[in-house]
């Protein structure tokens, strides 16, 4: 292994510019003649818009334009869409309601845009926005997914009676029922997977600029997938033809899924920029982000697991109501279906699984993919069932898991996924050793002496990453293919640019992708630059989410590198005057096998361009190759997280005192970056389990609309992590990469809750397990204990 090649903990190349404040985020950019836009947002969760009086606003200083949903409709700007079609049990298509970028007749959640003001300065735009008078007829609202389908619930969209978007299912219901009938033990759980607000460090932003000379538009935008944004905005919203719209995603400070989607704000900026013929800039404020960025999770589930007398799992069934909020966001429909139910087999051999999912509209912010997207929800269901089942049957939870692990690969689950490689025992064993599970009883006694309860919880999770084989997702309803593209451009001086369709917003691609190239071509990592995030520079690509950039994005680069090497060998054969078949490429040098004739990589690159040694008819000059890589399977990262907590019984405060993570991510390119991804993921999962408390009141007001009430995880909520890996290579891609971006967030909530319930001796604790909630649960335990005495 070289110091900068595959497997080396290379420091992140991009950090120099970030740490020295030289990053270029959307908000750092200023276009000549730029105006500012402010969104007038509905203060009501559900209200008919009777009339909008913009006259006072139009007369305010600096105002360039005040625009409403009526103007948008008059200009025939299309609706925002959800790009994954789900079919209900009865064969009917999902009920996708129109989603105008500015509400025209009815506002459907607090924060729904109802008008915009474009002005010379941000302050002027804000001042004028306060003068837009909207006459609302306030309607009753529904926020709780479990109540959305009730007859008495207010109807949000005409196309969706009972606020039901789809009633979907997966699996063999009859076989599952039969399996439950033969069960020795059944574990039942009611689970709420709490709604989360993503909160990337950089708020969303957009600048749109119209070039009247070419009738084209440019959008600088905080997006994880600039080409997808361009496609949707062109083909569906109809703002401009694809070739007349350039989307640039400059440095982006975190996304976690929330920047995948195509939102009203960027569409409105583009539309307004052409209307006022000036650049239009919008930068979300943090408070605005709480009601403007898609939220995550929000499932209500009843789940049951059937066991035989030996603790072997016979079947699992789950009924989930998924809250998709007021509109269907870009990929929302896929999250509680094909990204959720397909993972309900966990790491286990479960002969039969049946899952029903009702997706509902409510008067809340739209819900879509958030770090893990469906897989944390699935892991939570499975890992809670297994843990509680073990306790009920008085089997050691690690042992119960071991008895049920999938041990032979490939393994076809009853819910579509075919696991191709893994060693679940290996990660469990290693994690148990690192976590010193043997010493737990002693630690528990020590805690008890200090008046504290100690608990230990496992989560042996699996996820499907490397999203995704295009044909497979197409057959499941995806409106796009999920391959990735790459172009490797070798310059005449031997340096390399890699153009990737992935987009980095914290993942460190500029380093890891360069490592792969450096390793393969034997050139210094400094001589490699990674280009991404601009539809005018980079070929069409699908972007970054679903832990796909390594497994799919790097695989595309490897494919392009194969082609570069093949071409370079041809050039070398001319240069070294040898047969092409005799050329070997080693350590950055082309050699004639069995001789001492060599040509350095740089010499070959130069000769490819000067083309003096071969005829252009025989061999095309240049050294630049592209590829589109379509995976043949998902990848299946898996592992074991063990969480240990201490509970202060007097206050209900939970302290996470130890964390062990052993993950199998397949081939690791940069262990330092991988560890960082795991750290961040655990922090988000601990946030979900202990802290993040999105709360709507019954009127649909977001009670946790700022950091004064919404609890983000902080460093002191977390212990130092023990993070290690095991390795089974993913057979479906050239380097054997599985992906690591979401594992932490997927594994951790179940580990935390399993640890807390172990400590408390009650299963009745919902996420987030805040001090007040834990204290209340302890009071209940004490009362029932007293009643029993």
């Amino acid at each position, binding site marked *: 292994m070289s110091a900068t090649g595959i497997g080396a903990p290379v420091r992140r190349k991009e950090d120099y510019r970030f740490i020295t404040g030289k990053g270029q985020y959307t908000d750092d950019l200023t276009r000549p003649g730029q105006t500012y836009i402010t969104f007038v947002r509905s203060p009501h969760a559900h209200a008919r818009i009777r009339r909008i009086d913009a006259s006072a606003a139009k007369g305010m200083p600096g105002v360039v334009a005040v625009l409403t949903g009526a103007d948008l409709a008059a200009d025939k700007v299309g609706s925002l869409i959800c790009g994954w079609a789900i079919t209900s049990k009865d064969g009917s298509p999902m009920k996708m309601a129109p989603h105008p970028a500015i509400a025209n007749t009815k506002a459907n959640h607090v924060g729904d845009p109802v008008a915009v003001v474009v002005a010379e300065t941000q302050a002027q735009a804000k001042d004028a926005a306060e003068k837009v008078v909207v006459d609302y007829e306030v309607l009753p609202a529904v926020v709780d997914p479990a109540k959305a389908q009730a007859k008495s619930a207010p109807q949000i969209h005409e196309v969706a009676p009972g606020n039901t978007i789809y009633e979907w299912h997966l699996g063999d219901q009859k076989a599952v029922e039969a399996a439950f009938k033969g069960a020795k033990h059944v574990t039942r759980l009611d689970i709420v997977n709490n709604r989360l607000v993503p909160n990337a460090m950089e708020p969303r932003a957009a600048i749109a600029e119209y070039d009247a000379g070419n009738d084209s538009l440019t959008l600088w935008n905080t997006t994880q997938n600039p080409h997808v944004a361009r496609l949707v905005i062109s083909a569906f919203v109809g703002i401009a033809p694809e070739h007349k719209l350039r989307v640039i995603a400059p440095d982006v400070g975190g996304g976690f899924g929330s920047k995948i989607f195509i939102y009203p704000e960027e569409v409105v900026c583009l539309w307004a920029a052409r209307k006022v013929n000036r650049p239009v800039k919008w930068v979300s404020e943090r408070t605005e982000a709480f009601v403007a960025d898609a939220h995550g999770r929000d499932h209500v589930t009843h789940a049951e697991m059937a066991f035989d007398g030996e603790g072997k799992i016979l079947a699992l069934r789950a009924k989930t109501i998924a809250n998709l909020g007021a509109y269907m966001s870009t990929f929302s429909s896929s999250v509680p279906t094909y990204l959720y139910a397909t993972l309900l087999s966990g790491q286990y051999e479960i002969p039969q699984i049946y899952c029903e999912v009702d997706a509902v509209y409510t008067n809340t912010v739209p819900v879509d993919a958030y770090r893990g997207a469906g897989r944390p929800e699935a892991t939570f269901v499975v890992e809670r069932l297994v843990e509680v089942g073990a306790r009920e049957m008085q089997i050691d939870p690690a042992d119960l898991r071991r008895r049920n692990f999938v041990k032979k690969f490939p393994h076809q689950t009853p819910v579509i996924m075919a696991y191709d490689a893994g060693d679940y025992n290996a990660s469990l064993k290693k994690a148990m050793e690192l976590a010193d599970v043997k010493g737990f009883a002693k630690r528990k006694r020590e805690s008890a002496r200090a008046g504290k309860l100690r608990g230990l919880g496992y989560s042996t999770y699996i996820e499907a990453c490397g999203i995704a084989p295009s044909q497979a997702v197409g057959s499941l309803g995806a409106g796009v293919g999920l391959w990735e593209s790459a172009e490797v451009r070798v310059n005449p001086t031997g340096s390399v640019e890699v153009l990737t369709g992935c987009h980095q917003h914290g993942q460190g691609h500029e380093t890891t992708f360069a490592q792969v190239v450096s390793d393969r071509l034997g050139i210094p990592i400094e001589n490699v630059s990674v280009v991404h995030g601009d539809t005018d520079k980079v070929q069409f690509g699908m972007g970054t989410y679903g832990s796909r950039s390594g497994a799919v994005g790097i695989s595309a680069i490897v494919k392009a590198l194969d082609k570069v090497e093949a071409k370079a060998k041809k050039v070398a054969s001319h240069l070294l005057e040898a047969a092409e078949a005799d050329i070997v490429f080693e350590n950055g040098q082309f050699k004639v096998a069995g001789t001492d004739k060599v040509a350095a990589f740089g010499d070959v690159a130069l000769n490819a361009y000067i083309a003096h040694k071969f005829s252009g008819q025989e061999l095309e000059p240049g050294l630049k190759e592209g590829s589109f890589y379509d995976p043949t399977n998902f990848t299946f990262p898996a592992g074991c997280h063990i969480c240990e907590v201490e509970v202060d019984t007097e206050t209900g405060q939970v302290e996470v005192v130890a964390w062990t993570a052993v993950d199998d991510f397949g081939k690791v390119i940069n262990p330092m970056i991988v560890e960082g991804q795991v750290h961040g993921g655990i922090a988000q999962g601990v946030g979900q389990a202990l802290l993040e408390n999105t709360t709507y009141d019954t009127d649909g007001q977001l009670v946790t609309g700022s950091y004064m009430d919404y609890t983000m995880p902080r460093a002191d909520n977390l212990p130092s992590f023990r993070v290690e890996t095991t390795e089974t290579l993913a057979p479906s891609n050239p380097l054997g990469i599985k992906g690591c971006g979401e594992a932490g967030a997927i594994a951790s909530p179940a580990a935390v809750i399993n640890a807390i319930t172990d400590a408390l001796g009650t299963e009745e604790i919902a996420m987030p397990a805040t001090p007040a909630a834990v204290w*209340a649960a302890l009071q209940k335990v004490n009362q029932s204990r007293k009643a029993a005495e």
Partner: protein
Amino acid sequence: MYAFTYHRATGLRQAGNMLGKLEDSKILAGGQTLLPTMKQRLASPANLIDLGKVDGLKGIELKGRSLVIGAMTTHSEVATSPVVQQAIPALAELASMIGDPAVRHMGTLGGSIANNDPNSDYPAALVGLGATVITTKRRIEADAFFTGLFETALEADEIITKVSFPVPKKAAYMKFRNPASRFALVGVFVAKRSSEIRVAVTGAGASGVFRVPAFEEALKKRFSPKSLEGLSIPATGLNSDIHGSAEYRAHLVGVMARRAVAKAG
């Protein structure tokens, strides 16, 4: 933020005059409460009078049996002052638990108590120690200074100049943080003075800081956590929100009081 006029005061009297004369004016100290509120357009003073360049408002001094701290002294200065750490370590510790480093380096004692946020920390120390607030006009006992939610006894043109804290025999502050804001969900300051014992609670009360006479009585008999065992306060009149019910807060007052007594030693 709405537009406003910024004034840099150079002397106390001038600041007081401006405060009296300029329409809709407010003192600007560390700005850690005022500026975020203005940014969110929840406050819109027409005039801000900055005390940052007024001499004599900063500093920490031990005067006989009292620790006197200037109104413009930052939380960080109080937290790290050897004088405070020596005389009233509980006060230094309280200041070290306010917000984050940025807030502590800007936020001031005067600003905190003038604002009288029901979840802020300093009111518990002032009431718990029986401190005296010294203003441009008079001296106000802490018990009379905090009059309600974000309300104080300050008159419109009155400026806090310093606070005098009598040095207690023993004291301790226990803070149970609101998980989100990290302000006090419940904070209890306990002090044993030669004349009296005080137990002051912040965070829990719907109208701000309050004392707990029942706890003070019990501790007078014996200053020990044991004296408070089984004692609690009624939940009526306490805050109730998504972070904790009134019952939970009432319970925490007992827990934090016992822990504070134990810590005071």
